[in-house]
C-alpha cells in the first residue's frame, strides 16, 4: 500500500505583491477617491504557503520573483514566514502586482499587472529539485495559463510516485484546459475545492453530483475535500465509504472570507504531513479557516498554536469527539517513516463513531438529504398566520423530502408569541422571532443557540443579516435570519400621489383616511423618525407623543393583522397606512389592491425575522431541517412568485427571482440606505414605548 510521507511543501503558484487600498468606493471614470488605508504585501500563491508554514509544514516557493521593490517585498514576506525561495531573483524585471480596492462593504476590485512570475523565462520546472518527501501544491491559476498548464501536466507525469500532489482549482476551475485537468487530476493525491467551484464543474451544487463528477477523474487513493463555508467540509476518498464524511466547522462571526480557502488548504496539508488522519486534519483545517474569516485581509491563516488554543477552548464541535484525540492534541512532529496512519483514511470504528456522534448531534447534514428517519416526526411551528411556514406546497414538499410533518399554532402580536412560549413549554419546535426580540427571549432562556452547521443553506445567507448583532449573544446565533423587510408607507394608488414623508400622516388633506398599525414599537419609531430621532432609542419621548397625537384628525382605525388591513383597505376605509413590505406585495398580488409602497425620506423601519428553536423543543434535529428548508432558494422562489413574500436573507434566493418580480420594485437597492433596523429594547424602554402608545391611543379615542 502506498503511503504519503511528505515533510515539505513546494508551490509553483505565482506570487504577486498585493497593493491593498481601502476606499469609500471605486472611482468613476476619470475620477479620484481618497483611500483610507493602504498596504503592500505578498499575495496570490503566498497565502497557501504562509498557511502551511504557520501550521508547522516546511514550505518552499518554486516560482519566479523579480528584482525591484515588489520582488523585495515578496522576498521579505517569504523570509518572515520562514518560506524558502528556491529560485534566485529573475534579473529581467520586477514581480507583478495586483491593485486591490476594498470598499466599505468588503467588496473587492482588482487590477493585475503581471511581472516576471507570469513568464516561463529560462525556468524549467524539471530543474526544481524535487525530493521524494515533497508535496507540491498547484493552483488552478497555474493550470489555466495557456503555456504553463500543459507544462505542469507534463512535469507531474515525470515525478516519482511518492511525490504528493495537492491541487486547488480555485475560481478558474472552468478555464483549465481539459487535457491538463485530466492529466493532473489523475495524478493528484489531494483535490480540494469549495462548493461553488464544484458547482462550476458539475453544473449543480449538490455534493453527490460534484463528487460523482470529480471522483472518476481522481485515482482511487486520492482524497477529495469539498469546502462548504460555515458548514465546514466534506471528505470523500480512499478508506472513506461512499458516504461523505462531514467535518463541521466551529461557528465564528465572519468578517472577511478572503483567504479562508487558502488557510484551509495550508492547514490541511500541514495536518496530513504531521501524520493526522484525514478527518482530524480537516478538523484543524476548518478551525484554521474559521479563525481566518474572523480577520481582515488575505494572508490571515492562524499559526498551529492559535489553532490549538482555539480547539482547546472547546469551540470546535470535533473537539469533543473521544475517538479523535488527535484533533485536540498539539501538533506532532512529522513522522520519519511511512505508516498507514499517513494515508488519508478512516477506519471503520472512527467512521462509525463520527457518523453516529454527528447524527446524534444533528450535525450530519448532507445536501439532497435523505429521510431523517423512518419514524414519523411531527413538529409544531409558532408563527404569524399565513407567513410562509404554513404554505401548503411547502409542507407537502417538506414532508415528502424528510418524512416530517408540520403543525402550526399562531400568534396575533409578538408579545402573544412570548406569552405562548412562556406558558406552553415543550409545545413548539420552531418559532418565528423578530430579531429585535431575540435578546429578550434569549435572556428568558426560552430559545437555544442554533448550530449553523446543521443548517447547510445558512452558508448563502447575506452575512450582514445572518451575523446581525441582534441575533448573536456571546458568540452564538440564537436563530437563523430568515426574512427581512420594512415598515414603510402604503397609499392608495391614484388617490395619494404626494406621499414622500411620514408627515403625510398628519396632512389635513387626508383627514379620517389613515390607518395605523397597533404596535407601540412601530408607532414610536415613526414618531422618532418624524422628529429626527433614533427609532430604537428616542431621547425625547414627549416630542414623539406630540407628533403621534398630531395625527388624530387623520386616524380612522388601528389595525393589528394583515387580514384586517386588507379587508379595511378593500372596503375603502382608509387611504394611507404604515404597512409591511411583504404584506404590501401580497396585497397587490393576491388581493389586487391598488396600493403604492413608498419608503419615506425620513427612512423606514427595517426588521429581520428569524426562525429559532425553543429550548423546550424535543425535536430539534427536525426543527433545524425545517429551518434549512425555509431558507432554501427553491422554497423561497415558489413562495415569493406564487404569493408574494418579504425579502429573503438568502442572497441566492433573491437572485433566483424572475427579473419582473414585484420584489424588485418593493425592495429597491437605493432604499436600503434609508432603513433603520429595529434592535433589542430593554424592558423599561419597551414599557415606556407602550405607555406612549397607550396614551396616544387614549387621546385618539377622546
Amino acid at each position, binding site marked *: 500500500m502506498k503511503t504519503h510521507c511528505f515533510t515539505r511543501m513546494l508551490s509553483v503558484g505565482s506570487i504577486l505583491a498585493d497593493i491593498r487600498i481601502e476606499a469609500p468606493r471605486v472611482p468613476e471614470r476619470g475620477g479620484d477617491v481618497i483611500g483610507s488605508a493602504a498596504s503592500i504585501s505578498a499575495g496570490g500563491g503566498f497565502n497557501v504557503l504562509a498557511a502551511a508554514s504557520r501550521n508547522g509544514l516546511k514550505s518552499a516557493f518554486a516560482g519566479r520573483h523579480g528584482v525591484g521593490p515588489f520582488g523585495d517585498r515578496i522576498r521579505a514576506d517569504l523570509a518572515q514566514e520562514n518560506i524558502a525561495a528556491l529560485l534566485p531573483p529573475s534579473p529581467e524585471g520586477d514581480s507583478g502586482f495586483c491593485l486591490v480596492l476594498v470598499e466599505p462593504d468588503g467588496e473587492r476590485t482588482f487590477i493585475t499587472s503581471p511581472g516576471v512570475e507570469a513568464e516561463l523565462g529560462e525556468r524549467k520546472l524539471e530543474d526544481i529539485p524535487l525530493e521524494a518527501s515533497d508535496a507540491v501544491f498547484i493552483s488552478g491559476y497555474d493550470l489555466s495559463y495557456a503555456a504553463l498548464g500543459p507544462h505542469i501536466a507534463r512535469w507531474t507525469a515525470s515525478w516519482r510516485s511518492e511525490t504528493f500532489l495537492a491541487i486547488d482549482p480555485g475560481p478558474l476551475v472552468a478555464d483549465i484546459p481539459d487535457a491538463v485537468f485530466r492529466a493532473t487530476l489523475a495524478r493528484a493525491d489531494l483535490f480540494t475545492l469549495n462548493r461553488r467551484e464544484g458547482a462550476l464543474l458539475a453544473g449543480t451544487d449538490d455534493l453527490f453530483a460534484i463528487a460523482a463528477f470529480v471522483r472518476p477523474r481522481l485515482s482511487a487513493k486520492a482524497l477529495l475535500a469539498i469546502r462548504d463555508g460555515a458548514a465546514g467540509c466534506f471528505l470523500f476518498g480512499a478508506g472513506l465509504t461512499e458516504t461523505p464524511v462531514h467535518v463541521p466547522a466551529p461557528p465564528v462571526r465572519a468578517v472577511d472570507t478572503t483567504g479562508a480557502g487558502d488557510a484551509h488548504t495550508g492547514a490541511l496539508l500541514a495536518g496530513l504531513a504531521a501524520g493526522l488522519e484525514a478527518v482530524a486534519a480537516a478538523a484543524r483545517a476548518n478551525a484554521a479557516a474559521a479563525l481566518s474569516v474572523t480577520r481582515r485581509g488575505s494572508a490571515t491563516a492562524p499559526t498551529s498554536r492559535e489553532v490549538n488554543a482555539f480547539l482547546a477552548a472547546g469551540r470546535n464541535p470535533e473537539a469533543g469527539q473521544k475517538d479523535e484525540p488527535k484533533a485536540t492534541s498539539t501538533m506532532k512532529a512529522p513522522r520519519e517513516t511511512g505508516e498507514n496512519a499517513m494515508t488519508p483514511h478512516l477506519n471503520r470504528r472512527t467512521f462509525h463513531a463520527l457518523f453516529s456522534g454527528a447524527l446524534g448531534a444533528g450535525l450530519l447534514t448532507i445536501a439532497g438529504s435523505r429521510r431523517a428517519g423512518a419514524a414519523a416526526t411531527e413538529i409544531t411551528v409558532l408563527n404569524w398566520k399565513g407567513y410562509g411556514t404554513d404554505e401548503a406546497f411547502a409542507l407537502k414538499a417538506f414532508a415528502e423530502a424528510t418524512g416530517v410533518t408540520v403543525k402550526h399554532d399562531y400568534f*396575533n*402580536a409578538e*408579545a*402573544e408569541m*412570548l*406569552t405562548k412560549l*412562556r406558558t406552553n413549554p415543550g409545545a413548539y419546535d420552531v418559532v418565528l422571532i423578530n430579531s429585535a426580540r431575540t435578546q429578550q427571549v434569549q*435572556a*428568558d*432562556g*426560552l430559545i437555544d443557540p442554533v448550530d449553523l452547521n446543521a443548517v447547510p443553506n445558512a452558508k448563502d445567507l447575506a452575512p450582514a443579516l445572518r451575523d446581525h448583532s441582534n441575533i448573536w449573544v456571546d458568540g452564538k446565533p440564537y436563530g437563523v435570519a430568515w426574512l427581512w423587510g420594512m415598515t414603510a408607507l402604503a397609499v392608495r394608488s391614484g388617490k395619494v400621489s404626494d406621499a414622500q414623508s411620514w408627515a403625510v400622516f398628519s396632512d389635513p388633506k387626508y383627514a379620517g383616511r389613515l390607518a395605523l398599525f*397597533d*404596535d*407601540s414599537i412601530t408607532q414610536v419609531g415613526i414618531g422618532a423618525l418624524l422628529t429626527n430621532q433614533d427609532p430604537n432609542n428616542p431621547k425625547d419621548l414627549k416630542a414623539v407623543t406630540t407628533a403621534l397625537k398630531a395625527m388624530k384628525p387623520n*386616524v*380612522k*382605525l*388601528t389595525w*393589528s393583522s394583515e387580514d384586517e388591513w386588507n*379587508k379595511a383597505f378593500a*372596503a*375603502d*376605509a382608509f387611504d394611507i397606512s404604515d404597512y409591511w413590505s411583504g404584506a404590501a406585495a401580497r396585497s397587490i398580488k393576491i388581493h389586487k389592491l391598488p396600493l403604492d409602497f413608498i419608503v419615506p425620506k425620513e427612512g423606514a423601519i427595517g426588521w429581520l425575522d428569524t426562525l429559532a428553536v425553543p429550548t423546550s423543543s424535543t425535536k430539534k434535529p427536525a426543527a433545524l431541517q425545517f429551518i434549512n428548508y425555509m431558507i432554501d432558494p427553491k422554497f423561497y422562489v415558489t413562495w415569493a412568485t406564487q404569493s408574494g413574500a418579504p425579502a429573503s436573507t438568502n442572497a441566492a434566493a433573491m437572485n433566483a427571482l424572475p427579473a419582473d418580480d414585484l420584489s424588485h420594485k418593493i425592495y429597491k437597492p437605493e432604499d436600503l440606505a434609508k432603513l433603520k433596523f429595529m434592535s433589542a429594547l430593554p*424592558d423599561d424602554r*419597551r*414599557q415606556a414605548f*407602550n*405607555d406612549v402608545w*397607550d*396614551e396616544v*391611543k*387614549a*387621546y*385618539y*379615542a*377622546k
Partner: protein
Amino acid sequence: MQLEANVPRAEASSSRQIPARRRWTTAALLAPAYGWLTLAVFLPLSAMLFFSFLKAAPFGARPLQLTLDNYLAFIRRPYLVGVAWTSIEIGLWTTGLSALIGLPAAIALARATRGRSQQVLFLLVVLPFWTNGLVRVFSWTMVLREGGVLDYALHLVAPTAPPVSLLYSFPAIVIGLVHAYLPYMILTCYLSAAAIDEAHIEAARSLGARTPVIFAKIVLPLCLPGLISGSILIFVPVIGSFMEPRILGGRVGVTMGTMIEDQFVQAFNWPLGAALAFTMLGVVLVIFAVSSRVLPARVIAQ
C-alpha cells in the same frame, strides 16, 4: 353555605340518622361544582391578584419584587381616567338601550304570548347566544361600513342622502354590545314580568287606573328586580369588553378592556394588566354594594 345550614335545622325534628346521610349527599352533590370553581376561578384569580403586586411578571429568571405601583396607574397615567370613563359610558349606553328595548319585549312576551308562538319568540331572543362572538362582530362591520348593508338600504329610500358609515364610531360599539347582551335583559325582566299577579292589574283597572298609570305604578316597580339584575349582568362584562370596541370602534375603541388586553398580549406587563383588572373589579363591587341597598330584600333572595 346557606343551604347546608338550613338542612339540619329542617330535619332536626324528624330523625337523627337521616341528617348525617343527607349532609353527605349534599356535600357530594356540591363538591364537584365548588371544587371546579376553586380550581377554575379562585386559583387563577388569586395568582393574578398576587401578580398585580409585582414589579414584573415572574417568568424566566426575574426576581420577585413587590410593589403597589400598579395600583397607582390611574394617578401615574391620567389618560386612563378618560379611558375608564369611556368604558363606563359604553356600559351605561349599552345597559340603558338594552333596558329600553328589553323591558317592553319581556313584558309583551310574559303577558301577551302563549304556547308555541312564545317558544318561537324566545328562540329568537336567545339566538345571539348561539352565534360565535367574532362572527357576530364581523357581520356588524359589513352592515355598518360605508357601502355596507345599512348605507345601501338608506340610499334605496333616499338616493340623495350623504353616505352613512357608522363603523369605527362610538355608536357602532354600542350597537354591537347591545346585540350581544340584550338577551340577558329580556330573560331577567321576563322572569319578573311573568311573576306579576294578573289580579293586581285587574284591581288597578277596576279602580280606574289607565294603562300608563298601571305601567308606572304596578308593572315597572314589580319588574324592577329583573331590570336591576339584568343591568348588573350587562354592565359588568361590557365595561371589560375588548373585542367589540377593538373591531367596531377603530380609533375610538379604546376601553379599559382593550387597555388590559394590551398589557397582557402587547406589553407583557401582566402586573399592570392585573392591577387594572382588579381596579375595575373594585368598581364593579361598589356597584353591587350600591344596588344591594337599592334592591328590596325580596329581590336579593330571588
